[in-house]
């Protein structure tokens, strides 16, 4: 009986793999992606990258202004993430099974979170561009909304996982809703929530580069500018500094995480 089950599992796996290959071939032909051609062009692409993307002394002169924009971008992502985090906490309290006020608001909060989360950040940027125009506020709101949706979902799970027991205990002892939130939910969930916020700050520094290209702000704007002028040395400098900053932020947040968790 066990071998029978094993065999049928194996059969399922084979069918699954075949299906996967079919889907892959189908989508490749649908998107006109030519595998052979793309491999053939690889060496050419590498030669181009090596011959064009290096940092010259001239490009280094731009470093201060790059740093300026980069700092702007970092602060934009920190501001949008932290404000989104605070707002997400309120909606997450309504949405969590342990701390919900009633079923209607719980459902509503989950629906809102899911809608916001599933609209890509690029779409947010383009939508907001129409109402706010090309400025830093557009970038801020685009990052805020997408982060908000994600964090509500993450916070709901954190609350449900870590504090449903203590919430029940305090409810049974006659504590008020705000006492329960402040004395059980926050102490229990804060480190995990901080960890999510740090993660989103990292993510948003990357995203804000992309958003900046669309909204004409921050490091993304600069990247776009030099890219269109075909000044690839500066583009390389910008890319490299983004990578360094992102790694730096990641190291810092890893350290903070170790301390608080």
């Amino acid at each position, binding site marked *: 009986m066990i071998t029978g089950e094993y065999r049928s599992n194996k059969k399922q796996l084979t069918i699954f793999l075949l299906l996967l290959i079919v889907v892959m071939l189908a989508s490749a032909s649908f998107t006109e992606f030519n595998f052979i051609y793309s491999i053939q062009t690889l060496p050419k692409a590498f030669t181009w990258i090596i011959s064009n993307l290096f940092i010259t002394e001239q490009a280094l002169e731009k470093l201060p202004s790059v740093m300026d924009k980069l700092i702007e971008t970092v602060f934009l992502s920190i501001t949008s993430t932290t404000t989104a985090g605070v707002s997400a906490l309120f909606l997450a309290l309504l949405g969590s099974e342990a701390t919900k006020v009633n079923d209607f608001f719980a459902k509503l909060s989950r629906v809102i979170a899911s809608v916001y989360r599933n609209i890509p950040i690029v779409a947010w940027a383009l939508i907001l561009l129409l109402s706010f125009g090309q400025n830093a506020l557009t970038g801020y709101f685009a990052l805020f909304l997408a982060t908000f949706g994600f964090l509500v979902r993450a916070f709901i799970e954190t609350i449900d996982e870590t*504090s449903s*027991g*203590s919430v*029940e*205990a*305090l*409810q*049974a*002892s*006659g*504590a*008020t809703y*705000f*006492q329960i939130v*402040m*004395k*059980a939910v926050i*102490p*229990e969930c804060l*480190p995990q929530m901080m960890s999510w916020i740090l993660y989103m700050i990292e993510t948003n520094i990357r995203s804000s580069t992309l958003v900046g290209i669309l909204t004409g702000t921050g490091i993304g704007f600069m990247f776009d500018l030099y890219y269109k002028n075909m000044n690839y040395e500066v583009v390389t400098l910008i890319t490299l500094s983004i990578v360094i900053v992102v790694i730096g932020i990641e190291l810092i947040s890893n350290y903070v995480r170790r301390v608080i968790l």
Partner: protein
Amino acid sequence: MVLLQVDHISKHYEKDKPVLSDISLHVQQGEFISIIGPSGAGKSTFLRCINRMIDISSGEIHFDGTNMMALNKRNLRKNRTKIGMIFQHYNLVSRLTVIENVLHGRLGYKSTFQGVLSLFKEEEKREAFHLLEKLGMAEHAYKRCDQLSGGQKQRVGIARALIQSPKLLLCDEPIASLDPSSSKIIMDHLKEISTEMNITCIVNLHQVDVAKKYSDRIIGLNAGEIVYNGAPKDLLEREIREIYGANAAHLMMK
């Protein structure tokens, strides 16, 4: 004196699937009652109906002279302060210290503002230490709860319930996650609380022998109905078979 009076309560989550059906039970002040029964019999549900953590579908509950069903939110909170609750998984705020957790038991007596700012009186703090001492936990008062063993956590849970100055303790499988020696410590404490402090205890249990050893009265629950309600000494093989079903009872009598 009758402290708790449960009359004909029923509970169903889905229509035609009663979890509790027509349960009636009168409990004296200071009595130690165990509720036993197979998994899914409705023990936890029954316990949570008493302090209205779960709302019943029909019936009446009178506790300490008040009709629990007629209470508004505010008065329900006030009445819950008189009922302590103890859980299988302790339900402590694990990142806070022992003493902070014990003082949580006083939140029900405070305004939201006082509670959030932890404005506890000197005598409340003294009482918290006194209870910890009594439970043999004084040396751990400033430890974080996630550093304690299961038996120690449960003693913090008991202290948190006792600082409410309750008249009734509801204990939902307080020793189900503990080893035998910690279990004995916890059960001894509960027994002492009921005899010395005259606090009524209703304890859900899985172990028939523990129930027989400690209880004044045993309630047997099966599929949401009371099938046994009597003294421990009258709980014999036939009764156990009725509570747990023939197969399980056979295992238990060994």
